């Protein structure tokens, strides 16, 4: 039986005390244990950012790559070995600035990857600049006062819905158990899953704090998970009421199901045998 201890690594997180990433660390490990998945069958692929340090702290296969690029790497892993549980993980800067194009297309392809984004509305690691989810008017080193940020924030959920994601959810670092359940559902889902996690950066974001979210966050209940329009509308809710939970979930063939080469099973398990006849076409 898989226990939490199996996912224990000797390197411990060095996030600021209170950082929202800790909850996600707990929830991811919890979900994997809950599902009884063994560490050697798990790959956690991340980008660069505070959040992206995640694979350094979990005893599984970890891939800490480039800023903005966890999804292509994760896609490659899933294409190569469909037996693995592939979790892509990163920050909002990582996923919604540098990596947005990959998100759009990976979602569209319905590749069986679980993408968890620690959404703290800032570039944490590079000292708090406004990220693509920073609210209009957010003041930071690159968006000086009084105007602050002049961009409408990216809405990761409507983006994923429009791209064609088959599983779209929002979690909150203040609700670990709930977050864990979202991750469990995402892993059980066959296809691409986005979980955007509201995650306070206690150092750089003095607006989207635990207090802020506590007053606003509420859990979705009984929403029709297959209702695209409904999901889109819910996803547009903001301000005083911020829904968390699963917004949308439908079954569609994954890319591995559709592709004639991939659907024959993991590439990783296939040998190479070239028949002499291959040369005939050149005659």
């Amino acid at each position, binding site marked *: 039986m898989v226990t939490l201890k199996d996912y224990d690594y000797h390197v411990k997180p060095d996030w600021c005390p209170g950082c929202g990433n800790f909850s996600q660390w707990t929830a991811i490990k919890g979900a994997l244990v809950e599902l009884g998945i063994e560490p050697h069958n798990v790959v956690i692929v991340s980008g660069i950012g505070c959040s992206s340090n995640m694979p350094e702290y979990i005893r599984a296969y970890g891939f*800490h790559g480039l800023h903005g690029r966890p999804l292509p*790497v994760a896609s490659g892993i899933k294409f190569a070995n469909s037996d693995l549980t592939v979790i892509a993980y990163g920050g909002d800067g990582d996923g919604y600035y540098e990596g947005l194009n990959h998100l759009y297309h990976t979602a569209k392809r319905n590749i069986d990857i679980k993408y968890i984004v620690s959404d703290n509305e800032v570039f944490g690691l590079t000292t708090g600049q406004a990220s693509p989810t920073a609210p209009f008017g957010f003041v930071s080193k690159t968006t000086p006062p009084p105007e602050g940020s002049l961009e409408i924030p990216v809405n990761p959920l409507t983006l994923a819905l429009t791209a064609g994601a088959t599983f779209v959810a929002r979690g909150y670092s203040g609700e670990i158990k709930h977050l864990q359940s979202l991750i469990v559902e995402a892993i059980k889902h066959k296809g691409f899953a986005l979980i955007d996690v509201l995650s306070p950066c206690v150092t750089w974001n003095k607006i989207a704090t635990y207090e802020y979210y506590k007053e606003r966050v509420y859990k979705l209940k009984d929403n029709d998970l297959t209702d695209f329009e409904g999901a889109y509308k819910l996803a547009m809710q903001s301000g005083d009421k911020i829904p968390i939970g699963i917004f949308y979930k439908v079954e569609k063939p994954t890319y591995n199901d559709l592709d004639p080469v991939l659907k024959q099973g993991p590439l990783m398990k296939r040998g190479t045998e070239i028949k002499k006849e291959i040369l005939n076409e050149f005659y």
Partner: protein
Amino acid sequence: MKNDYVIRIGGAAGDGVQSSGILLSKTFTRHGLHVFGYNYYQDLIRGGNSWYQIRVSDKKVKNQGDGLDILIALNEDSLNRHTNPEINEGGASYLRGIAIFDESIKNYEKRDFVKYIPSPLNAIASGISKNPLLKNTVALGMVVSGLNLDLDIFISAIKTVFKGKSLDENIEAAKQGFNYYKEHYEIFGSLPNGNKKKILIGGGEAVGLGAAVGGIKAYVAYPMTPASSTLHWLASHSKDLGIFIKVPEDEISAINTVIGMNYAGIRAMTGSSGGGYDLMHEGVGLAAMLEIPVVIYESQRAGPSTGLPTKTEQGDLLMIINSSHGDYPRAVIAPGDVEEAYYYTREALNLADKYQMPVFIVSDLYLSERIESVEDLNLEFKIDRGLIANENDENFLRYKYTDDGISPRAFPGMKGLMHNEDSDEHDERGDVVSDAITDPVKRKLSVEKRMKKLETLKKNLPLFKTYRLDDANIVLVQWGSTKGVVEESADILRNKGYKVGVLEIKYVFPFNTDDFIAKTSGKKIITIENNYSGQLANLIKMFTGVETLKINKYNGEAFYPSEIVNEVIKLGGD
């Protein structure tokens, strides 16, 4: 007896120039003859003026060749252009031989060194069907006849290329063209019979085949000329070869996907040309840092920037060798012809796994888009996956500091080998040394560990290949696609009494400095490159301190032997 003919088919984009060229080449190889075919085209889909040049002989043909013996002109412009002694197509020769063209073309300047053969190409074709491309086959039939070749063999080639209704039409067109020439004109020339069976394969296809035999399970690339021929060939064979093909959203995705695949334990490759490769630098550095093998096929075209998308150049070498930021090991291999494109690609895949580093196969339009006859390709190949850990090895250290710098890999899914691969600097275990307390000691060891692999590779590199170098006092140094044209230039110069040999650089990086010095010292050294600045010459100077004489061509076209011969003589070929 003349045993070497150059044939050119000229027309507009969309006129079927290239497919006619390939069909004729196939006909030649089925006669057991040797062929070299090269496409001269522009960056557009219809119109313009493009041409296909085929050189055929009973001996190995090493380049597109000087001279021009037979012209098929599919329009007036082509007829005038290729018979004009002032022809200005980057070194190509004008016609001194026969010109085959439709009799409706009247408006051309007569040259007395040309034998004009106005022919009822359109009339014959339209007598068979409305297919406008049929006239090409009529013209090819005339060429086959004019070279005293076998109509049945031509028809057998047609049978391979065409299917259904268009097959019958084309056979008929071939016959009528063949007979028309036979009835109205004398044999233009005869080719000695080749004897050995040959195949005809393109440079890009050879890379694809090499990759397949080298064991790739996936090829992920965004289309870009002239790298696309490999992508297309692999895509059309993906099911029979069991190779997964994906066009992703961009080249950044391509390289990162392929890195993910190699990390997960399969062999996977990507490819592009300069502009697409520009977007891969960061990925290459990532692979180097994580010590994940990755093979990148870079087929150059004339730059900078978009440049001349359908023209050739060897201008990307220094960029490739100096890709991405920071010091790290890499290998750069430049095959010289179609055969080598096949063999070195599969070898590159072994090298990458063995040394766990990025390995480049550098080609260019001139190599990737040429076709060559080849006597045989050996499909036997021992795949060497390099050092892989045993499951549950308690002493497993992904980045173990070893004497040769090479450490064992572990693939996700393997039991008891969980670890982190990190683009941040890390220690033997893979744990990051840039957090909490940066560790300068481990940093230094890790740098040295990675760079040791380069030293190990350097020790195991094969020596440089040479051609007629033994008694030479002039050494022509070349890399990549110019191999054949430089070798033939050496032959011509030898015939003129110059003692010329060739040094061929296939492993451009790391560079075998000692071998270079051993093989060139005391000789006059001339580097020959399809670029402005002499990038190989600069590298040689960097690695050896030796300053070479230089021959450079950078107008978008490949070298012709005569150009090299003249330049060598000018540089004081004695």
